[in-house]
């Protein structure tokens, strides 16, 4: 089996911008002139920005998206290789500190169009209803300025638009089913199922994960090659680059890639647009009626802090002093178990089975909130670092441990850590990046509840590994995802934006990304980030020009624009199951 039947794989077709093996950008992109004032500028076309630009373009607005990284042609730019995928991550300089410094870069920060959704593992669980009422129910953290039920219709929309594959009945939080069938189980999933079943823990198999279990439009189904977080060349795993950006371009959006925005410009208390360095390093300006910052939980506060100006000396939208505070990560301890028989955990998506049985606060435990348990599938380089961290392996010990790579199975904790004001993003004034822009200084400290939760959760995951028959179990402390640092809230004294991401201080300046999260639950944030973006889109479209003047806004909640879904997504998939709270909806 050394030669393909029809010769070596030929690769991309000349002259086509390929988004996967079949999908390509066939519509020419619109280009606005240098003096044109557009309706919206979005800074960062990642998980949130990718959805929002699609909504605004489809509604007919003039919108330009900026991204510091490239507009990937995935057939040419991406590789099926761990070391070769470094460029997918945000690797500009940042300084880390605090009592528990958080690894950035490939751990949690994306770069280029699609942003973090390019390298996420694509677990797509919803938050639970309790996540929106953490302070009311548990006396910790803070409540969201919205409820689960406000966001639920957008979860349902995005689960079709991504789309999400998963079981027909998902029992946790607000029980629901998924529009597309679950994936088959791989080696790590089999371990998780075996261990959980022995311990009487319910487990969800084959999802929820935003990876095609069947082909979907011009996007093929998953081929189980395991390189999800190196960027899915297959086109099966959702990123906004695949699911929303092509529709945005088709409807007249412009995306300027390799353009680093360094300042939000202000005049008379309103923003007038942004200044950026273009791909050649020239300083440019783009005028806009509304600016939306979608740079994720470090770059968003960095840009707004770096945009300080007369009247906004502490940074834009920072009258509360909360900008850059309450940055959150999730406890992501990786627990690896070695088995007598081979597992080969590099096959199948790293994300394909999980349990949320420990998600909610349990009065029998000595900490608030809870955690999920999920499969992971580290490739050799990541796994060698786990051997270094868990076993202290080096030298011959490393070589020996790694020869057993195929016998290990990796399962991880995903635990809710609470928002604390001493977990911050600030500006390191004496360190600048390659453009000369001051970089972010990220400090992180664990608090008592966080430590207890992580320790307890890690013990449960170890129990699962032992129950599944592992012969050796070791654990590594790790932290996943980045949210918070520009949180939404109903009180302008303790938050940066409203629930629609509108900043309390500047009427036409919005934030739309994970930095809005007041708390984070134990769900991977991707689905919630994209759902919030769709909701913010509906708000912006509904308000129109009213947004430019404080006090002229429409009151209430915008209608849900199901008609703005990307082509071929709305109403597809399995009809919904009846949930405990809502009447049956057949399709959308």
């Amino acid at each position, binding site marked *: *089996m*050394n030669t393909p039947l029809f010769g*070596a*794989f*030929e*690769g991309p077709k000349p002259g086509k911008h390929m988004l996967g093996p079949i999908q390509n950008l066939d519509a020419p992109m619109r280009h606005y002139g240098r003096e044109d004032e557009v309706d919206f500028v979005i800074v960062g076309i990642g998980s949130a920005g990718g959805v929002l630009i699609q909504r605004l373009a489809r509604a007919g607005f003039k919108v330009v998206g900026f991204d510091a990284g490239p507009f990937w042609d995935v*057939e040419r*730019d991406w*590789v*099926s290789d*761990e*070391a070769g995928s470094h460029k997918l991550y945000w*690797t*500009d*300089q*940042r*300084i*880390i*500190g605090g*009592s528990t*410094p958080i690894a950035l*870069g*490939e*751990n949690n920060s994306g770069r280029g169009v699609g942003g973090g959704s390019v*390298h996420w*593992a694509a*677990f797509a669980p919803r938050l639970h209803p309790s996540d929106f009422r953490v302070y009311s129910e548990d006396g910790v953290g803070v409540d969201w300025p919205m409820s689960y039920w406000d966001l639920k219709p957008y979860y349902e929309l995005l689960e079709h638009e991504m789309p999400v594959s998963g079981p027909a009945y998902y029992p946790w939080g607000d029980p629901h089913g998924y529009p597309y069938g679950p994936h088959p189980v791989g*080696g790590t999933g089999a371990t998780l199922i075996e261990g959980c079943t022995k311990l009487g823990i319910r487990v969800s198999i084959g999802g929820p994960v935003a990876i095609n279990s069947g082909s979907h439009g011009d996007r093929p189904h998953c*081929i189980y*090659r*395991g*390189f999800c*977080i190196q960027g899915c*060349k297959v086109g099966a795993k959702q990123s906004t680059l695949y699911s929303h950006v092509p529709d945005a371009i088709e409807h007249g959006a412009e995306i300027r890639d390799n353009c680093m925005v360094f300042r939000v410009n202000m005049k008379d208390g309103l923003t007038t647009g942004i200044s950026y360095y273009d791909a050649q390093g020239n300083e440019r300006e783009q005028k806009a009626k509304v600016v939306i910052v979608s740079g994720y939980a470090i770059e968003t506060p960095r840009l707004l802090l770096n945009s300080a100006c007369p009247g906004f000396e502490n940074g834009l939208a920072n009258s509360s002093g909360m900008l850059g505070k309450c940055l959150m990560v999730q406890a992501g301890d990786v627990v690896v178990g070695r088995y007598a028989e081979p597992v*080969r955990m*590099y*096959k199948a998506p*790293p*994300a394909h089975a999980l349990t949320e049985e420990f998600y909610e606060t349990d009065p029998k435990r000595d900490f608030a909130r809870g955690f999920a348990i*999920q499969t992971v599938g*580290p490739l*050799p*380089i990541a796994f060698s*670092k786990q051997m*270094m*961290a868990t076993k*202290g392996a*080096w*030298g*011959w010990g*490393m*070589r*020996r441990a790694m*020869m057993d790579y*195929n*016998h290990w199975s990796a399962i991880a904790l995903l635990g809710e850590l609470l928002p604390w004001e001493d977990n911050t993003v600030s500006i390191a004034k004496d360190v600048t990046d390659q453009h000369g822009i001051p970089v972010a*200084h*990220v400090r992180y400290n664990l608090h008592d509840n966080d430590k207890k939760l992580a320790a307890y959760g890690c013990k449960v995951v170890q129990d699962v590994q032992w129950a599944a028959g592992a012969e050796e179990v070791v654990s590594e402390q*790790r932290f996943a995802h980045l949210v918070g640092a520009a949180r939404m809230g109903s009180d302008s004294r303790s938050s940066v934006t409203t629930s629609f991401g509108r900043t309390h201080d500047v009427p036409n300046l919005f934030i739309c990304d994970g930095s809005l999260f007041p708390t984070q639950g134990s769900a*991977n944030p991707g689905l919630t980030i994209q759902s919030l973006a769709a909701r913010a889109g509906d708000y912006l479209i509904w308000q129109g020009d009213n947004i430019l003047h404080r006090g002229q806004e429409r009151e209430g909640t915008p209608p849900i624009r199901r008609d703005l879904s990307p082509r071929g997504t709305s109403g597809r998939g399995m009809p919904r199951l009846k949930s405990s709270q809502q009447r049956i909806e057949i399709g959308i």
Partner: protein
Amino acid sequence: MSLGSLVDRLLNGPGPGHTGGEPRPAATTSASAKDTELWPVEPTTGQPLQPRAQPGYYPGFHTLSQKDFWDEATRNLVLDRVENVPPIRFFSVEEAMLMEAVVNRLIPQDDREAAYRIPIVPQIDKKLYDNVIPGYCYEDMPPMQEAMRLGLQGIEAIAAHLFGKAFVDLGPLDQDQVLLTLHDGEPPAGDLIWKQMPVTHFWVQILSDCCEAYYAHPYAWDEIGFGGPAYPRGYYRLLNGEPEPWEAEEQRYAWAPPPSCLSYKDEAIGHGDIKFVPGQAASH
């Protein structure tokens, strides 16, 4: 290995790449007693085991033989990694020789025939020269280039303190003793250096760099039975650790590390007291 040939290897790589499926016939080598000390041993008899073209439990498995099934961008990248070993541009000749000696203990390859060793120092040099930063820097640590130079000075200081010799002139056990003090977070010399950066941060940086180079190479994938690039073909056999038709069944053999090493015991870095962030790839 003579000084001249070491420098030659550093500057020119391990020789012409070979990207076909089958390993080349073993070169005839006359091993000196000093070399056999470095070889892994048969655990019951203690007899040194001859180096192999492909150590590990998957004889006959060659990821590179599947290269025609890979997409073009991946094929070009991986073949370039195998065939074109980057030149030494960051390290001075002295630094490169010290690095080579250190790396030979951090990821020893004495069980590999010389033609099948994986170049590590040139990849680390390239990363430092091209300034491929991980996207963050500890507030209590200098930039990685400066950290690497400081760390190498620290290693020399410890070697001088413990044995009164340069690191490269030490035997394998003594070299491991020097490195073990870094692993344990208890360097007995070089205080001024370790005040500028925590020793554990340096240990994690240099060992991570070695792992990133070694386990990025197809020979290492063959050794551990990893399937390698898998687009556009994908995998079919997801369960029970079964190999694909083009992969190989595991065939284990017994081996123990050479007696001339201290890197075999699994003990937490810094005795587990020191917090650090390995910064491994996102896994969820």
